[in-house]
Structure formats: structure tokens, C-alpha cells
């Protein structure tokens, strides 16, 4: 028997926390901007809810609205220009994987709960294109192919952005470690 279609209110109730955390990452931790992004995304969701055909896709539908709202804002915001990510070809991605070097110091403590703030600060120093992928895959447990669909890029591009994003995160954590021990 088919489960009843969830209301938008039920969907939001279930996913608002995750949407807010993702908005915080997209906005590099600026709470006012993150709240505003969620607000705008929900306004769009209210307008488009009737078009949601598959209730099981509600979560990814909400995230897609959120991320695309953010991307649209970035495009229309003329005063802001970040260097765009240069994506790797599949061959270049394999070269990068082959050339991986372990962290200078063990990163074991990076997964400890008491270093959350360090990880967040390091993550906010990672370029937008990489940070978005790292967050969606690692924190929200999206599959590469779903992120590829959301961002409208090939799955291999998402895989390489995940790698480069994690490398950038590692570098940012190591820099921070160096700053603290210097």
C-alpha cells in the first residue's frame, strides 16, 4: 500500500535542521545569510510543492532548491567573484589519486567531537564548489550521482571535487595545526 504523501510541513519538520546546517556551509557560517537562504528556499518550495510527484524524493527536492537558490544568488551577485573551480578530467583525477601523500601529522583527532570548530573553520576556507560537494557527500550522505544531478555536472566531476575538497580541508587543518604550534 502506497504511503500517504507527506505535507510540506512534515517534510520541513523532518529536514529543516539539515537544510539549515547545509545553508550555513554554503554561506561560510554566516547565520543571518544562512537563515535568509533557508527562508528563500522554503518560499520557493511553497510555490513548487504541487509539482513534487515523488514523495520519496522530498528530501533531495528540498536540498536541490536550497543549493540552486544559493547558486543563483551567487551568479546574480555582481560584486562577488570567486575563482571558479577548475575541474579535473578523469585522467587528471587518477593522476591526483596516484600522487596522494599522507597528512604531515595524523588526522585522527580531526574526527573527535571536541575539534568540531576547527573542522568547520577549515571547511569554510575551502572553495565553494568543493565545499558544497564535501558537505553534501560527507555530512548529508548524498551519493555522487545525486550530487551530479543536483549540480548538473558529470559524476566524475563530483568525484574529483570531493577529492580536491578533502585535500583542501586537510591542507587547511594542517595550516591551522601549524599556526597553533608555531
Amino acid at each position, binding site marked *: 500500500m502506497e504511503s500517504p504523501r507527506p505535507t510540506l510541513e512534515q517534510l520541513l519538520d523532518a529536514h529543516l535542521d539539515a537544510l539549515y546546517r547545509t545553508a550555513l556551509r554554503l554561506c561560510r557560517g554566516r547565520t543571518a545569510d544562512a537563515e535568509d537562504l533557508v527562508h528563500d528556499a522554503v518560499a520557493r*518550495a511553497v510555490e513548487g510543492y504541487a509539482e513534487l510527484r515523488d514523495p520519496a524524493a522530498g528530501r533531495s527536492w528540498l536540498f536541490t532548491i536550497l543549493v540552486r537558490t544559493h547558486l543563483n544568488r551567487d551568479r546574480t551577485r555582481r560584486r*562577488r567573484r570567486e575563482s571558479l573551480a577548475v575541474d579535473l578530467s578523469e585522467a587528471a583525477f587518477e593522476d591526483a589519486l596516484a600522487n596522494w601523500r599522507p597528512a604531515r601529522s595524523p588526522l585522527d583527532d580531526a574526527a573527535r567531537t571536541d575539534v568540531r570548530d576547527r573542522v568547520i573553520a577549515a571547511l569554510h576556507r575551502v572553495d565553494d564548489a568543493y565545499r558544497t560537494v564535501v558537505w553534501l557527500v560527507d555530512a548529508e550522505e548524498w551519493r555522487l550521482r545525486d550530487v551530479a544531478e543536483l549540480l548538473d555536472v558529470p559524476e566524475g566531476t563530483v568525484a574529483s571535487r570531493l577529492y580536491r575538497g578533502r585535500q583542501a580541508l586537510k591542507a587547511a587543518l594542517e595550516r591551522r595545526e601549524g599556526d597553533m604550534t608555531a
Partner: protein
Amino acid sequence: MTGSLLTCAQARRVLWPGQGPRPASPDVLAAQEHVAGCAPCSAFFVEQATLGAAVRESDRRSAPDALRRRVLAMVRGGRQPALRKVALGVAATVLIAAGAVAIWWPDRGVSERTILSLFTAEHQRLVAGGGISSGDPAEVTRWFAGRVDFALRIPEFAGGALLGGRLCMADGHRGAIVEYEFEGQMVSYFVLPLAVRGAPAELRHAAQAGYRVVWWMQDGLLHGVVGGLPAERLEQLAKWCRELLGKPSGPLTGRPRSAVLQPWEG
């Protein structure tokens, strides 16, 4: 590395995370065999797992209650309270906001130092993105209308270009920042629902982090202009703002009235 046919890069690519459950294809089995016998590849995947776990555990916070209430109210079909307030007109709304401020902060207020730090830190983030980019005061006013809990009037200044606006958080409450450009210099105009200890009705001047600040309290809201303009010009801007706010205005529904100020022609 091992006797398997795959290189390290190929094995890492095949087993790269985020691909979801997959059948045990020959490629996957060969890659697993490779990694099991290859110390660098094992270290590679341990590091990837560590970084992934660090990100996953980094932030488990919940959405703020106020945000939850706001968006759920929107979903339920009710327009936001702020929009209804706007329809009541500026005079009534300013009174409501002033009253609310008095209730919210009956015996407290933030310090001057906190305010100056907020002003300059937010001004430095001027190019950080977010908010609205528009030179149309009506559009900027409409954008703020559902986002802040007070009526906001957007001054226009001859000789200056309105660039847009964005939100900021001050002591847990949403404030407005309107952005302008004067002769190549960026100026931020702040309106915050905050009380400051020893709240000044007169203009107060300060300099911090290389910027000049002129700020004052009016109608229960904290106002400030911040930028790198010469002190007398910034003060003139503040005076014009204050004068505008003291004038009666029509309702802000539809196209709001905005005064065109000419601070350099006084």
C-alpha cells in the same frame, strides 16, 4: 605495490567513496584485493574515512526556533507578521518596533564596544555576498519587508549609488544593512533592533579598524553609518538619515516613498 593488475590510482578510483552500494564486480573485487595488500592505499582510505567522519561530526546543530516558526508559518499559508506590520504604515510600525524593543530589552543593552566591532566587521564583509543587489529602493524595501521585524526606510542620496542590502545578526536578532557607494567608497547604513547602554540620541562618532562610524538611537532602533569617507561627509549622511526618519511618511505597501537626499549640497 601488489601483484594485482590494478594500479594504486585505479584501485582508489574504483573504491572512491560516495558511489553507494554496488555489486561485487570483478573491478571492485580486484580493487579490494589491491588495497588489502597495499599499505599506501590502506592509509589513503583511512585518511579519506577520517576526513569524511570529521565533516560528518562537525556540525549537528538544529535550526533556530525562530527560523522554524517563520518558515512553518509561511508554509501554513500565513504571511509573515512583518509584512502585516508594513501594511499598517510606517508610523504605526515604528511605534510597534519601538515598543517591542522596550519589552525585549527592558534593562539591558549591548556595549558600545560590541556595537563598534559589529559595525566594522560587517562593513568589511561588504563584498561577501548574500542579500539583494539592487539600486531600486522600492525593491530593496520589499526585500527587507519579510525579513526584519521593523519597518525600514531606504534613503537615497544624491551623489551616492544604492547597491543593495543584506541581513546581519546582532545579539540574536536580525538587523538590516543597506549598502551604498560614494565616489568609490563603500558605505554601510545599519538599522538594528538593539538598545545600547547609555543609548545616545545625539550622533556619536568613533573610528575603528580604519573606518569611521557615526551612530545614534532613534525610534527605539540603533542606526549607524560606516565607511571610509571623510568624517564630515559621513556625519552629514547620518544627519540626513536622521532627518528623513523624523519625517512622516506614507505606508510602505506598494512602492514606498523614498526621500532623495543631497548630503553634499547642504
